[in-house]
């Protein structure tokens, strides 16, 4: 294990939702730690509480028990200067242009118009959105929309980026390209990323650490550290073996979730 400091600590977190059809245990006694600069992927069957866990780190959901520390301080609410979230649906404001969407977070923080415009404009290049600054969301493709949403999170320059299945709604080819693009962005900005996905490929291609969650109530089943160099050759025997191992872990839980 490396000696880098832990940036995120999750200790014994439990969450139960009350629904009209009775209580649902979303998370049960989840503990996980993520070190600075890591790319940590949460993977597991549908409804295993991955999104709930992410919501807690983002300060949108409060745990019933346990605690979450970011940078040594407990999470009490949304703190966009430290943690920025990207949702599965891009969630772009349809009445705002690309540029205005990217600068939205800065605007809420009260950053002066000129400075936030500049920050956002500088981001468009790496986002591959130069020339689309004045377009409205309806004029953008699915992949572009998701890049705008990621740009909106990056604009805040928070240390931590939470991503809740950001590419879940995209077609496979776009998805692969977006993965390569995200890897590039991450390696350049050195953010700490928590990434929720259903895709084995994404988990193995991107992560330094993969946490497999169990079927509901969600717990951390196993956590793997991946040390291979980037960019990873997905066909190497090492990767193929890892993929098989990961799949057998997840398959079991997915089967349980389907029952």
């Amino acid at each position, binding site marked *: 294990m490396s000696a880098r400091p832990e940036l995120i600590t999750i200790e014994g977190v439990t969450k139960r939702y009350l629904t009209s059809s009775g209580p649902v245990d979303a998370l049960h006694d989840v503990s996980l730690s993520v070190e600075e600069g890591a790319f940590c992927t949460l993977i597991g069957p549908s409804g295993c509480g991955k999104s709930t866990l992410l919501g807690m780190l983002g300060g949108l959901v409060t745990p019933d028990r346990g605690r979450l520390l970011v940078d040594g301080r407990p999470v009490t609410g949304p703190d966009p200067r430290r943690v920025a979230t990207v949702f599965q649906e891009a969630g772009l404001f349809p009445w705002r242009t690309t540029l205005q969407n990217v600068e939205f977070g800065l605007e*809420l923080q009260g950053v002066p118009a000129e400075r936030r415009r500049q920050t956002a404009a500088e981001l468009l290049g790496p986002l591959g959105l130069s020339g689309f600054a004045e377009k*409205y969301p309806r004029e953008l493709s699915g992949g572009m929309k998701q890049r705008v949403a990621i740009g909106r999170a990056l604009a805040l320059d928070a240390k931590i980026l939470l991503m809740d299945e950001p590419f879940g709604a995209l077609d496979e080819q776009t998805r692969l390209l977006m993965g390569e693009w995200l890897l590039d962005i991450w390696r350049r900005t050195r953010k700490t990323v928590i990434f929720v996905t259903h895709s084995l490929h994404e988990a193995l291609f991107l992560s330094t650490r993969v946490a497999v969650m169990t079927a509901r109530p969600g717990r951390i089943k196993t956590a793997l550290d991946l040390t291979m160099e980037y960019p990873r050759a997905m066909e190497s025997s090492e990767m193929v073996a890892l993929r098989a191992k990961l799949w057998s872990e997840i398959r079991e839980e997915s089967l349980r979730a389907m029952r």
Partner: protein
Amino acid sequence: MRVRILQIVTVIAALGVWEVVARMGWVDPLFVPAPSAVAPALLKIGRGALAGLADTLGKTAVAYVLSVVLGVSAGVAVGSIRLLREVLSPYVIAFYGIPKILVLPWIVLLLGYGTTPAVFYGVLHGFFPIMVLVMGAVRDVDRTLVAVARSLGATTWQLYWKVLLPAIVPSVLGGMRLGVVFCLLGVLVVEMFAGVRGMGHVLGSYANGFQAPELFAATALVSAASIAIVLALDHLNDRLSRWRG
């Protein structure tokens, strides 16, 4: 293009049939005058009718501004506060649905004849559709947008100002389009029921005086004004929402 031609042909054909029917004496010209008799009547009533129309539109404008301001504020407040919405919505729907004509005599008793009851009754008609529409729109604002804004640290004030209000603009515009017709309707009804001025009064007195050509001309005038207002609002609507595509 073919659509446009068909529309024009329809109007001309309708007027033609009407003219022939009236000329042949199939209907009593006392009740249904031929278009050729309505056109001169339009010139004859000109000045007086325009003054009446101006009076009516003036009251409608006041009622409309009040309806929009009150309707949007109430819709946003009730729509965004869950408890308020759950408690009040059956009452709002009930007030929206019941025929307001039933309270008209009482309003006239309380407020007398003239401008005040007309404006009040206009607001009564315009307020509810706008409020109901806005209320629904606020309730149905995309949850993801709210979550995004909250995760980016939006304050309550910012949530309203930067997310809710822009998101409901299309519904507000739709409500404004609907509301103006309702306001005009309310004002006209009061003028017919207990008016001393305005287009509703003008229409009523032509009907009572069996002045069919004048009545038809005046009806055409109000209709044209109403359609023009709605088309203008539609145009404004298109201009204001480029992002909707």
